[in-house]
């Protein structure tokens, strides 16, 4: 399956911040490098790379690649929020 531009750029951000290769399935629980410090780094880096700003309350709910992707507004991203 081809990655679209947004996904590809977002993966780029994730890999730069987490400092290792990641897949679209990466999430906060499964990735040991994704601690609270890196979490804020991800938030800041995604905000710098995309026209998006996260609210204080939603920051702790961004727990996976897909959460970020959905919030950025990619129409192909399946929702992970229940």
């Amino acid at each position, binding site marked *: 399956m081809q990655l679209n531009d947004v996904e590809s750029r977002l993966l780029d*951000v994730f890999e*730069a911040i987490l400092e290792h290769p990641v897949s679209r399935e990466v999430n906060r629980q499964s990735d040991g490098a994704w601690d*609270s*410090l890196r979490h804020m*780094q991800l938030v*800041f*880096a995604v905000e710098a*790379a995309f026209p998006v700003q996260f609210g*204080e309350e939603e*920051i702790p709910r961004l727990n996976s690649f897909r959460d970020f992707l959905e919030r950025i507004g990619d129409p192909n991203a399946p929702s992970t929020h229940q």
Partner: protein
Amino acid sequence: MAASGDVALEKAEWQDILFQAVPDRLALAKLKPKWPCREMVVHVHRNHAFEPLVLAGQAYFRYADLAPRFLYGGYDDSFTFDWAKGHPADLELIWIDARRYAEAGADFSLGEWFRARLVALRAQSAAPILVVAIPPAPAVREPLALAAHGLAGVHVAELGELAQQLGERFNDLRAARYTGTCLGDLALILLAREMACRWIPAVLGPRVKAIAVDLDHTLYDGVLGEERGGVHLTAGHVELHRQLLHCRKNGLLLALVSRNEEIDVRGLFRLRRDFPLRWADFSATAIGWGDKAEGVRAIARDLNIGMDAILFVDDNPGELALVAARVPGVRTLHAKADPRGTLAGLAHAPGVWRWERSETDALRAADLAAERERKRQQLAVADPEAYLRSLHVHLQVDVRPRPHLKRLQELSQKTNQFNLAMRRLTEAELERYFLDPDGRVASIRLSDRLSDSGVVGIVAGRRRGNDLFLEEIAISCRALGRGLEDVMLAAATQALVRGWECSRVMIAHRTGPRNAPARNWLMRLTGEPLEAEGQVDAGSALGRIDMAQYPVRVEICN
């Protein structure tokens, strides 16, 4: 391990990312160095999180060749420092959010409390102390700066300019809950830039002593001597010239390294009255068609400084790589096509920025010009001794040199050639000599009719019983070459033992990378070979030096 030339090329590319007004967050995160960095231990005493800055600003530390190991105490509003007691560090960092004391009550004085905390930290550590306080308001910085006043080796960072630049973006209150600090992402990045490229190198060195700049496409657009095009000075170049002049005023020496004909270059500076930089502003030049590595070496020889004290600036990455590969330790800066890029790189070139301008900094360029004049006149006279007399050399030995503490520390830290024990004393370590009743310190000031060289020497030690143990002797390279070492050290020793019966004067020595001149002096003085490290009794040899034989006026200030 990357070769020096490759490192210079990589750093030239990094400049484009690191020194943007607003650095690209992602590009910054992707910068991974491949060169060795200097390891150091930094104790972080904090009441808000420092870790986000480390993570955000890694690339800046690596660009400055620093690999700090940050050791953290717990969050502590009382700043007790207990956790660090007994563990040596290269730097003590106080990272304080002063808003946490806003409700401390009317009796609480931030300045008085902080002064007591600094005194407590100084009592347990001789390492330099760096204070970074938020919010960046004068109401916070001023009492803290006042609290630090007079304490050796304490520096309080000024964040006003950064706060003005960032405005509301300085803080990001959303993040405070998760990162433990209210500082915004960009503030963290830019603070890391200040810390890595300015504050820490200015405290721990090594400092840049000279900036060697290329001409064509660096100080102006175009190529000198080309019939078409010519030389264009843009507004950005004017600003670059002014920044270099500012560096010169702060004690850095300027040098020219250019592939051109010297006659053309002199003509250029004579004719172009719009150049803020003048020919006379350059303390050394290497102009010709040879390779620039040899030019930079010649500059180092001419200025009598180490090659690692030179920042070489050139628009041609190939030249940067060549010079870096052939001149060990030299630092490089890529002059960008847009001079504002060069300016940004120069403003943050590690080792260039200073906490303050010292008296010696102000004297340096004039003193160097005077030294040239001395050498020129000396060659022209038949009787060198008569010439030395005509200079009216004045040596002033001060045995209470506490006001010169910063300069004495600088001499201990920076002097390589005439440095006997290579102890590299910090300000706080030096201060201990002043506080110890048995401590003995002398400063040596040198002047003649051509220039005032300022304080050029330090002799520090302790009295033990009837013996004087000299633990640190350093003389600036600017005072060497005039045959005055014997009289300087005889006068300093005599001043230190005045008023008591001294049996022995033990001089500590240690082999350093470049201190052969000092060791040779000690061997010649005592007539004995030296071990790699140890101490020798030089009391009788120093006592035999007949100061009256020297055409020098010696003044001892008690």
